[in-house]
């Protein structure tokens, strides 16, 4: 492949880089409490960037015989590119494969049986419930080739389970809730059923709370949704364009001391890790916000160059797209309190688990306004029943400045490893 690319690029090429990805997966789909379909999926793709005298062109294909033609198309789009001054790396190293041999033990028949048991356990608590599940195993490889001599490939394995429950109460009130888990190899997920059952049980009682300002506790999965809004403000692309509230704020204390954001490429157990990014930069674990102070951004080569900073190893890249800055993994520094302590300290407040429409406000500014899809009343230090037909709104930047607490417990959800967060004085409308 390397030679094929070299043969196809024009003589005056300044540099090129190409990615070749391959993958195979076996997703099992369960609908309405039963196995619905067994899938076998195969795909591969090739994308190439060609730079001639500073300008870059790009093209992609997933036709295995189409490499030379793709290089030609990329070359043809070069004149439309703008002058880019960054340099591609020559010293990329591969230190590990995000692959676990255990993935080979994935057995569809026994996974179907295991999922069946899982569903029956939930069904035994709520006979009319509808459970959809997906259990999937995949393996693949990512190969990066560039004109500076890099030609490296890593192998990946990925196992994931997601279970989504929909329960309609008499009278039509609907409870939807879900849990998921991911790993490098097949893993036990029995404990998810009791989480789901308990959450649904608690939702059967509907509580009332008057409009006003209340403390809100976000469990880790909900924390991820809120942190995502600030994390997007740390993206070098938005910083360079001047639309991020965190542009030009390096060294400034913007948030509460308890607030931090870390780009972590090596979250333990996470299958979302890679030895090098889409352009061949080796990533490191970095604080972007530490004790409320902005310390850095995430960039790819292009935005590192535009912002005049070092590349950070955050170039996300599929075969069919140009690289762009993206988090490797998001985590925070844990706090001192426990979730239990947070609840104990509340007279009247809310535990907010799931939202409808959270990302539809002007998130560039940090604004949010969301219906509480699933949330619970906290009263006199105890979690009570469900709050319904209500919204919370505010600004994430303002809230993280105010009196927040983070828990010492941390949970991993996908590429996030996050604590519970206690927010003070959130606007609630019912």
């Amino acid at each position, binding site marked *: 492949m390397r030679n094929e690319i070299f043969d196809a690029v024009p003589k005056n090429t300044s540099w090129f880089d190409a990615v070749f990805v391959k993958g195979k997966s076996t997703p099992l*789909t369960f609908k*309405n*409490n*039963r*196995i619905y*379909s*067994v*899938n*076998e*999926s*195969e*795909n*591969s793709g090739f*994308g190439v960037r060609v730079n001639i005298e500073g300008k870059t*062109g*790009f093209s*992609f*294909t*997933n*036709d*295995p015989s*189409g490499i030379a033609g*793709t290089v030609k*198309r990329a070359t043809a789009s070069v004149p*439309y*590119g*703008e002058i880019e001054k960054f340099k591609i790396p020559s010293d990329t190293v591969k230190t590990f494969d995000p692959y676990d041999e255990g993935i080979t033990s994935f057995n*569809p*028949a026994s996974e179907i049986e295991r999922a069946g048991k899982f569903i029956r356990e939930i069904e035994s608590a709520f006979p*009319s419930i*509808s459970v959809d599940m997906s259990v999937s195993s995949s393996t693949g490889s990512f190969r990066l080739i560039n004109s500076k001599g890099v030609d490296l490939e890593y192998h990946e394995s990925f196992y994931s389970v997601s279970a989504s429950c929909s329960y*309609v109460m008499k009278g*039509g*009130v*609907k409870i939807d809730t879900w849990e998921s888990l991911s790993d490098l190899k097949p893993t036990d997920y029995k404990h998810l059923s009791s989480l789901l059952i308990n959450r649904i049980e608690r939702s059967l009682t509907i509580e009332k709370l008057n*409009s006003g300002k209340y403390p809100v506790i976000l469990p880790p999965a909900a924390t991820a949704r809120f942190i995502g809004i600030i994390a997007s403000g740390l993206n070098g692309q938005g910083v360079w*364009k*001047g*639309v991020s509230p965190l542009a030009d704020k390096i060294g400034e204390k913007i948030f509460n001391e308890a607030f931090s954001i870390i780009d972590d490429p090596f979250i333990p157990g996470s299958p979302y890790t890679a030895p090098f990014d889409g352009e061949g930069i080796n990533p490191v674990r970095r604080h972007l916000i530490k004790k409320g102070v902005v310390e850095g951004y995430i960039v790819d080569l292009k935005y590192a160059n535009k912002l005049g900073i070092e590349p950070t190893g955050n170039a996300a890249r599929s075969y*069919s797209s140009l690289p762009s800055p993206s988090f490797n993994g998001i985590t925070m520094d844990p706090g001192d309190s426990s979730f239990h302590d947070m609840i104990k300290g509340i007279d009247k407040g809310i535990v907010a688990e799931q939202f*409808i*429409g959270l*990302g*539809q*406000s*002007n998130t*560039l*500014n940090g*604004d949010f*306004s*969301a*219906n509480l*899809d699933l949330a619970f009343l906290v009263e006199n230090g105890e979690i009570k029943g469900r709050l*319904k*037909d209500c*919204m*919370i*709104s505010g600004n994430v930047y303002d809230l993280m400045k105010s009196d927040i607490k983070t828990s010492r417990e941390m949970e991993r959800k996908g590429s996030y490893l996050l604590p519970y967060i206690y927010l003070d004085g959130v*606007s609630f*409308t019912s």
Partner: protein
Amino acid sequence: MADNFFQALENGRKIISSISCEYADIRLSVSESTGISLSKESVESVTSGESVGGSVRILKNGSWGFATFNNLSSLEKYFDSALKAAMMVNAVEKSVVSKSEGIKASFVTPAIRDFDSVSLDEKFELINSYNRMLMSSDKIQTTHAAYRDVNTSYAYLNSEGADLFFDKSYCGISLMSVAKSGNIVQPFHESISGFGGFELVLDKINLAEKVVKTSVDLLSAEPLPGGKYSVILDPKLSGVFIHEAFGHLSEADFVHENPRMKEIMELGRDFGPEILNVYDEGDRPELSGYIPFDDEGVLPASTALITKGVLSGRLHSRETACKMDEELTGNARAIGVMRQPIVRMTNTYIDNGTSTKDEIFDAVDEGIYAVDVIGGQTNLEMFTFTAGYGHIIKNGKSGKMFKDVILSGNVFNTLKNIKMIGNDKEMFGGLGGCGKGGQSPLPVSFGGPHMLVEDVLIGGK
């Protein structure tokens, strides 16, 4: 690439006629796409690419096996793997499908200017001219102007003898200006798309002008205080409302195996006032949700979902129609050949009522005129959707502009709270689309006339 495709198609015809199962289909596609993305003074990307793909789906002994691939030269292998996958399961409750006539037909998108014949220079210059308009105020911090076209040859075969081909051309633009003043950053966005040629995206400078003006106007707008309001929805919001709040409920896969949802969604049940009529129509070639046939080889229909306020129909795949013993509607759709079809909307709208826009405004002493849309989401009971902006209404007159107009509520109560329906229906589609079951974006369109809804919850400080 095309040679491979037609060889695979010929091969697929042979295999599918010999397979022993309840039902099987093959979908194959090859496509070529061009994308141009500009941001203020920079060129983010100019991309061309090609994709090939295929899938085989087999229903055997009541279980589905599904294989997807991008190597069209060994179809037999994927047939085997789909068949083995289906036979791996010993289904207790079996999947079944409604049968239809095996249709043989070929469709092509009517295009005035085929974008194959348009140079990259001309495409670039067009989107660049819109981008210049998006930058045309000194309050603009950044812009995003994107052009995309896709030419796809799509073939569908099934074990009933269906042999369908669609040569489709789809293109669109997406335009955004981000205005900034002090710490306030204010984006506004519009997008259009559809099936056709380059003519679809020509002469849209007015759209870019509206985008830049609205983003600048919104800089000085205040957020709307939270509370309950009487709201007039503009045609675009009426469309998003009916798509989000009701359309997803009418997708039968949410209902067909869920006894309590079946009770809620019983045909004949009162859903709204007598003036409310809602349709889904896949057979409208001029709209972004057009399909000449669905991804199970079924011809699309005009389905009356609500007639005079009463639930009168729902959207089906072969499986849900069979399970519920209802007619096929042609609503099984996938975002590409490598995904399984699921029940989806096409072009969904609230039909015209009898009121004029003026009559609707005259009926409101105090309320909000909610205009344009940023997004919408539902869990089939509650919904949230965000208007682009709003104006306060006092004594029938539209006044001061507000931003952050985020409407939320219970689907069923809100439908019942529709008080007046206008006679000025419009349809909308864009380069984005609808998301469900991890499949996004699926091209759809939605629309309706101006509409008055009472007691709508708006979130705010």
